[in-house]
């Protein structure tokens, strides 16, 4: 299979799963009126379902003018930065609801991502070619640092929670599928981290065009891993549920 084909399939799976899971969580939030599903659903929907396709379209879609590209890139920045803040809120409210430091992290992330959105608009306005939308700029580098930090926090909290829930599982106090879902959420965070980190690191070391294929391959693999983890966590097929339940029976 050609790299371009694999990249297209992996990216499509990632976007479709982010869109579907985000929408499902938002519908769930409408019924339950609870904050965790609202923040998780909103975050996934805005980052993966809407923001990422706009970001890619701004730079890579054919027959798009520079003005339209600027509009798309700016919109993507608003959606994705707000989405990252929602994921940060989800991690705070679910894993550290009583911790004062977590409240501070949530507030700092919100204010910083808002400021970075404005900075991104300034950068986008100065771009002379559409392909530069995916190149690194000071605002994009800083945004990626915040996104990476949010994914690390989310992943670590999910792994800590998973370790605790495994002890409940050993006593039969919790369903195996719930414990597995927490582990898959940590996997989603790890894949998203990898996806952002590859681009961040490539930009940081100024990777040449001859290595861009490797960057795209790694990003695609991370996106595919994230899409599959979202599928297994939130739309698990019956065979997978049986396997998870059987592993602990």
């Amino acid at each position: 299979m050609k790299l371009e084909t694999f990249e297209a399939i992996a990216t499509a799976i990632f976007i479709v799963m982010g869109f579907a899971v985000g929408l499902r969580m938002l519908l769930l939030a409408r019924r339950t009126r609870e904050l965790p599903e609202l923040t998780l659903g909103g975050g996934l929907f805005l980052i993966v379902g809407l923001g990422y396709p706009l970001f890619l379209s701004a730079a890579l879609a054919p027959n798009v003018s520079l003005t339209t590209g600027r509009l798309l890139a700016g919109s993507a920045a608003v959606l994705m930065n707000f989405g990252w803040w929602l994921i940060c809120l989800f991690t705070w409210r679910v894993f550290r609801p009583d911790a004062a430091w977590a409240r501070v992290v949530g507030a700092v992330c919100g204010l910083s991502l808002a400021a970075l959105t404005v900075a991104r608009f300034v950068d986008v306005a100065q771009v002379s070619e559409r392909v530069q939308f995916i190149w690194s700029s000071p605002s994009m580098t800083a945004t990626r640092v915040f996104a990476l930090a949010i994914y690390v926090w989310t992943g670590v909290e999910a792994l800590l929670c998973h370790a605790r829930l495994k002890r409940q599982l050993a006593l039969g106090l919790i369903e195996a599928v719930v414990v597995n879902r927490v582990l898959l959420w940590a996997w989603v965070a790890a894949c998203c981290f990898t996806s952002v980190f590859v681009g961040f690191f490539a930009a940081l070391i100024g990777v040449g065009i001859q290595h861009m294929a490797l960057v795209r391959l790694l990003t695609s693999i991370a996106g595919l891993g994230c899409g599959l983890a979202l599928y297994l966590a939130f739309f698990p097929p019956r065979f997978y549920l049986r396997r998870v339940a059987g592993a602990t029976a």
Partner: protein
Amino acid sequence: MSQAYQEFCRQIETCASLSDLQAMGTARILVKEAGLDSKTATSAKLSVVASKLLPRQLELLGVAGSDGVAAKVNAALAAIAPGAAAANAPEAVFRRLGGTV
């Protein structure tokens, strides 16, 4: 601390004739070993802890008739309402996230 957890501590203290500090320490060890949170632990879950983990812990403390003590604690916990898990405890959230919309 949840109401069930407070009752759990009180029953360990009374039924095993331990000091309040010993009872609280024992409860804390057990809850940690079971992966529970003292703020959200329900009587249903603590009842399982009392059955499966408490006897061994009481033996370590040299309490005679640990099985009988655990049964008394369990009976006291059964008398109070099982209690719903806190809606926003991580396990409750992740259970809900897999539910129907």
